[in-house]
């Protein structure tokens, strides 16, 4: 297992995702002799996981069962331990496409945060690209580095614990793409530019507040970035349901036989009662060659 390469079978040291049900998953570090408790009972790693095929059904000690899934950046995003607000798959997907990431891309990112986006970037730029990720919070930077090792992607990433607004990304002239998710992105625009290849590249800044967007766009325009474009993308989930709609009884006329009260079953979808109304504004820009 690695986050950038599928394996067929679960091995010692893997991170596997236990699928208990929709919106109920947990990551497990697979270790000989270890046990993991779920609401369906315990899973014994040695007998229940190691050597089994990913996707297998595993019966827990209480008789209920779960599926064991191969980790992906997307499953990781919904199961990772939150150390910060994280980016979710909808925004990540958009960022990946709009930054034109692909195998071989060199990317600079700040902050690393909980590593949700980092894993998705690494998946996309492997096996020949590299991610330089900067996190000013020391504990977070260390935890992220440790996770990258556990997930066997550490050869593709360099984690730096520094303040990107003061100290930049620690590299110059190498990046095809830069991603900013920091409180004052406008302060990092110059550093972003320095990190990018002289031939140019793409930049994305994620900010929850419109004032941050305004200052960032201003800084980007000032620094000569082109194609500056701000957008918002929101996910809408449609839960599939069958609903029963009763038919009204308008009464039968004497000449007719009495109407039977009936209902019609309709296949439809319902939205969740509350949905994400905002994650952040995504501002994209192109750096022309300098």
């Amino acid at each position: 297992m690695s986050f950038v390469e599928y394996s067929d079978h679960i091995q010692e040291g893997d991170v596997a995702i236990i699928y208990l049900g929709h919106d109920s998953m947990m990551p497990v570090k697979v270790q000989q002799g270890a046990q993991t408790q779920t609401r369906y009972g315990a899973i014994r790693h040695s007998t229940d996981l190691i050597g089994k095929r990913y996707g297998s059904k595993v019966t827990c000690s209480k008789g209920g069962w779960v599926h064991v899934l191969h980790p992906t950046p997307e499953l990781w995003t919904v199961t990772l331990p939150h150390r910060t607000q994280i980016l979710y798959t909808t925004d990540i997907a958009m960022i990946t496409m709009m930054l034109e990431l692909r195998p071989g891309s060199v990317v600079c990112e700040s902050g690393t945060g909980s590593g949700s986006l980092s894993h998705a970037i690494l998946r996309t730029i492997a096996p020949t690209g590299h991610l330089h990720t900067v996190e000013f919070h020391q504990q977070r930077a260390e935890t992220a580095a440790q996770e990258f090792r556990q997930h066997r992607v550490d050869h593709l990433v360099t984690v730096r614990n520094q303040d990107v607004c003061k100290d930049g990304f620690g590299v110059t002239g190498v990046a095809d793409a830069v991603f900013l998710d920091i409180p004052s992105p406008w302060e990092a625009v110059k550093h972003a530019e320095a990190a990018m290849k002289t031939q140019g590249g793409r930049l994305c800044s994620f900010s929850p507040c419109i004032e941050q967007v305004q200052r960032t766009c201003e800084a980007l325009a000032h620094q000569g970035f082109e194609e500056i474009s701000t957008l918002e993308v929101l996910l809408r989930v449609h839960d599939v349901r069958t609903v029963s709609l009763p038919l009204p009884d308008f009464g039968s006329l004497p000449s007719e036989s009495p109407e039977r009260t009936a209902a019609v079953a309709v296949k439809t979808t319902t939205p969740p009662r509350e949905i994400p109304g905002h994650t952040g504004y995504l501002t994209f820009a192109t750096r022309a060659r300098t």
Partner: protein
Amino acid sequence: MADNGDDDSQYRIKEGDYVVLKRGDIFKAAQIQLKKKVIFEKQWIYLDNAVGHFYRTTFEIGSGGTLHPKKSKELESSTAAKEAGTDNRNIVDDGKSQKLTRDDIEMLKEQGLKGQEIIQQLIDNSSTFKDKTEYAQDKYIKKKKKKYENTVMILKPSCRILAMMYHGREPGKICHLRHDTLAQMLTLANVHAGSKVLVFETCSGLVLGAVMERMGGFGSVIQMYPGGEPLRPGVESFGFPSHFHDMLHEFPICHVNALLAGTLDTKAKDPNTGTASPPLINLEQSILTTGDSQQNKPEVKQQGRSAEEQSMEASSDANRSDDQAKEDREKRKEAKSQERKVKLEEKRKKMAAAAALLEGRNADGLVIASRFHPCPVLLGLLKFLAPSRPFVVYSQHKEPLIECYTKLKEVGGTVSLRLTDTWLRHYQVMPNRTHPLLLMSGGGGYVLSGITVSVDHSKAAGSPQAEEPAPKKLKLTNTEG
């Protein structure tokens, strides 16, 4: 209102008033009744002290649930003198940042500290608060405010407030109709004073009340209702002046076919002969049977009173001797029969009045919002509208309205058909922290709207109706291929 604009009395809370309690975004409808407990957000309150105060007064909930008017502005002031960090970099999440324990907080409460004071204590005892960004500080305060503040504002009810209240608290009772959707319906149906509007709803009376509010006591509203009784507990919550109820009529849908066929007899029955002309529907018969029909069943759950009656009856029967029970039953039967006759006569009069309004088939508007399949409801009730009048049909789901649309296109008699929904998002507007709210409603339901026209069965070529849907369909099929 213009008619008594300078009269302050209508702006004061009076005994018997229907009001809405508000805390943050939480609303609850209530009536001002002396010495009567009201539950609001898991707290018992007595509303007695509110009497005489102006609407929109904020009250602090004291010990024992009594209300004490809060000094104005106290609430609005920013809770903490903010000293914000610029970022969260130095915050370590170890769960130890709050020095006050649960017990400490309970003690503060017992000491009679108000919500706001407790929150200040929490802030003062948080080792990380000052290091948090302004954004995070604000989130923290809001969270704690919700938990510890103990105030309630008393509002005069309105369609706006009640619609938000129902959607927020009990969307299931109003078929998940969101307030902006209701707003669209009232406007698209051109509901206004002086018109004659048909309403068919199973939204606890919210939609009916909304229509009545818009008509301001002028004109007529006819509630077309399913089952044995019109259900509209929500209308009461609007607290309309009594003359508003003069415009409200009701008609049971189980007589719609008879009314349309001209076979409905709404004349008073001669009690001596007890007969009605054979071809006409016998009203008494039908009213009596309606109560027991299948049709009525889904309503029983909502209709507290009748369900209660039934169960009381059943349990009392169980532990008596057969003879005594029989005798009692006879007596009750007699009393009930008498009661029923009175009710029946009342009902007959009401129905006759509504039938008279419907018979001209010249209603000015039709509003449907129910858990029933909208298609037969719409097709049935549309017949009562005059030509060139708007109608709106709400459904929580899109699919049944697609069917309505298709059916209406088939049968004709309507133009300007449109199936829509609305997207609604709220914003936080604050200096340097402006953004859409992080959560929004997933959906507010769908509306099909249209306008009636005179029916004409000779379809001419080159007509708007023939020309309208076809080309688009064709175009779509092309791009599909």
